[in-house]
């Protein structure tokens, strides 16, 4: 009984302490302002120290798709460190998006980091990036489709690191057996998929997501939104027809999902010869080399649709944060990494393609089999929407899964997508 009031008396200072801790947390969060000041200071330091002479530590944060890629990039960074007074380090992190988000929210992001074209609008809208305007050598050399992927709000934000496109991969012996050549248009694709389908094999294994099905929209003259990103156009005739075309392939069993074929992703099903064709990107080269080295396969450009050729370009850029501690040094590193010599050095041994047109021929010489991917660059479209669009994209992706599984209607899915997207576009 006696201790009751005392407990209460103690509760008061404790609550105060809790509030204090919370308040401290709050102010800790708000350190960004201080960070910006530091950034300005840092910038003047560099200026005073006459550019690169001052020498600063630079962090490059990214993700890694293979140990070989890490090694290659680290080697290039080593050469950078030799010729510069700055010291750069490459820091590949797992769960990249989450880590980057935490770093940005903490107010002290790394000096240079990767940004996927798909996530660029959100990052720009949040004011986290510094525009690349006037910071780059030979800006005009980059592929226009890639520059477009990193242009938002009429500003070019960051130079593309490299890129991949979608193409059609096919199993050479299976096509020969069936006596057909790689399909070049939609009709041929449908015929080939049918001819290659057997009881234990699908003609085509195709992922059920927008970055695959969207290529068919483009090939039919459609798109999910208009050019200016002001109007939803998912439920327009070209899209309906493109999806109906794919729906038929799945309904007849000529096309299948990876899960239908007991595989984790389409490349696996293709490698196990459970499907004769698939539509994937440059990464297929590395994956097949590692997991299915004996498979005899080849690549062709995506079949041309009724309204012409189209494919997706997937690309990542080197971005500098708006509150960079040493912006000049950061851009110096970026320029070095995207310089023609270094880019060629980096991409030559990998299936990814350099983002500069001027070194395309040299790259092709080293990778002659990969021409179909490179040809896609001229008609590729970026995988990109506007800020906050992911929610509408989720609706579309779910619908695509449903269409492939045969439990959703094409019209309904596209209308749902429009309905979900319109409020995001602000209509």
């Amino acid at each position, binding site marked *: 009984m006696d201790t009751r009031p005392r407990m209460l008396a103690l509760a008061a200072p404790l609550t105060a302490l*809790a509030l204090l801790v*919370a308040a401290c*947390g709050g102010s800790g969060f708000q350190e960004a302002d201080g960070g910006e000041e530091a950034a300005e200071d840092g910038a003047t330091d560099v200026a005073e120290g006459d550019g690169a002479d001052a020498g600063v530590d630079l962090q490059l944060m990214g993700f890694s798709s293979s140990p070989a890629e890490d090694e290659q990039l680290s080697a290039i960074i080593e050469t950078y460190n030799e010729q510069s007074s700055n010291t750069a380090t490459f820091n590949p992190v797992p769960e990249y998006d989450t880590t980057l988000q935490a770093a940005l929210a903490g107010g002290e992001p790394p000096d240079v980091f990767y940004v996927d074209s798909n996530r660029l609008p*959100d990052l720009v809208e949040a004011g986290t990036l510094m525009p690349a305007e006037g910071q780059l050598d030979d800006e005009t050399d980059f592929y226009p489709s890639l520059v477009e992927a990193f242009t938002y709000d009429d500003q070019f934000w960051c130079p593309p690191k490299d890129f991949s496109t979608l193409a059609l991969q096919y199993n050479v012996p299976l096509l020969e057996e069936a006596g057909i050549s790689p399909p070049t248009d939609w009709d041929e694709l449908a015929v080939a998929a049918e001819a290659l389908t057997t009881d234990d094999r699908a003609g085509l294994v195709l992922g059920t997501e927008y970055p695959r099905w969207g290529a068919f929209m483009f090939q039919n003259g459609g798109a999910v939104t208009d050019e200016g990103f002001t109007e939803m156009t998912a439920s327009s005739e070209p899209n309906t027809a493109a999806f109906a075309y794919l729906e038929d392939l799945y309904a007849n069993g000529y096309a299948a999902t990876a899960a239908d074929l007991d595989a984790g992703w389409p490349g696996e099903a293709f490698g196990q010869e459970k499907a004769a064709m698939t539509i994937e990107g440059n990464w297929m080269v590395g994956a097949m080399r590692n997991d299915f080295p004996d498979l005899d396969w080849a690549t062709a450009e995506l079949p041309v649709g009724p309204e012409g050729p189209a494919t997706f370009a997937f690309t990542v850029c080197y971005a500098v944060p708006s509150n960079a501690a040493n912006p000049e040094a950061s851009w110096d590193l970026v320029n070095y990494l995207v310089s023609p010599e270094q880019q060629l050095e980096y991409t030559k041994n990998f299936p990814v393609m350099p983002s500069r047109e001027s070194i395309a021929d040299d790259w092709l010489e080293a990778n002659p089999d990969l021409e179909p991917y490179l040809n896609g660059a001229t008609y590729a479209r970026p995988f990109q929407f506007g800020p906050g669009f992911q929610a509408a994209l989720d609706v579309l992706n779910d619908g695509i899964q449903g269409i492939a599984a045969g439990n959703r209607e094409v019209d309904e899915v596209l209308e749902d997508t429009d309905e979900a997207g319109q409020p995001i576009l602000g209509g």
Partner: protein
Amino acid sequence: MNALRTKLTNTESVSGWTFMAPALAGLLVFTLAPILMALWVSFRDWNGLVPPGQSSFIGFDNYRALLFEPGVNRTDFAISLRNNAYYVLGVVPLQTAIAFALAVIVNQRFLRGKSFFRTAYYFPSITSSIAVSLIFLFLFQRNGAVNAFLGAFLPLDNINWLENANGVIHNVLAGVGVERPAVLADNSIMGLSLWQWISGPSVTLLAIMLLATWTTTGTLMLIFLAGLQNIPVEVEEASRVDGASPLQHFFRVTLPMMKPTLFFVLTIGIIGTWQVFDQIFAISAGGPQKTTLTPAYLVYREGFRNFGMGRAAAVSFILFVIIVVFTLVQRRIVSPDEQ
């Protein structure tokens, strides 16, 4: 005398608080402060890309978008609630019943290899949930062990477990000839038609429910076992002397004496199932067609993929309320304090 006592209690409480200080500080910094901060974030339009101080206060807008405003956010939240409700209704009774049964079995005094069984049942609980999920991915493949097993007894085609969005109740209804009655299809709650609400867990979610049951049963069995061993032998003997049959003994003596344990197991079961995340992260990422989306996964998705950290925080606080309500209702029903 009184003064001395006051003084003694004073020194006692000072040293008491001193000893507690390290633990208390940890609790404040790592538990209370983040909770308060999350609460604060749930009232702001923070996108998670800038320091939260730069976001602006938007009142209850995040909560409104989840609960009242028609749109993707509300529909997704409704879907996640539906999925998780079926998950809880399926997993909690199942895992509790199995765990209790296993505990009673391994508590038999004359069972041979008792410690082997206790270890075997407990093993899934100490295995990483991600590792277990990956193994289940293989088991539930079309040509996997589960289908092979079912195929041996039932005339079934190989079931597509892992990418099957069809609701179980929908499947049963379709089996008896009910297809989307207009009453259910045309009326909706939170943007989700009644027909969609009664879908039942999708086949994929069902597979995850089985996995979850399998992994947690061991822990719960251990708790039940501890409870069973706390029942004094005298009580058992007394009931036997009074001529109780084994069944009567179980229902009239064991079960009532296990009420506090049962309450505890149900409570942690409900809390755990409303927070299911890792299995979903590893197996289905919310798909197919959002049928394995749960509030906990929605928090992750909204916060880290869709740049809506404020909304994500709001989801987690609604989830908190749901868990509290469920626990209170459950307490009403089980009433652990009465004997």
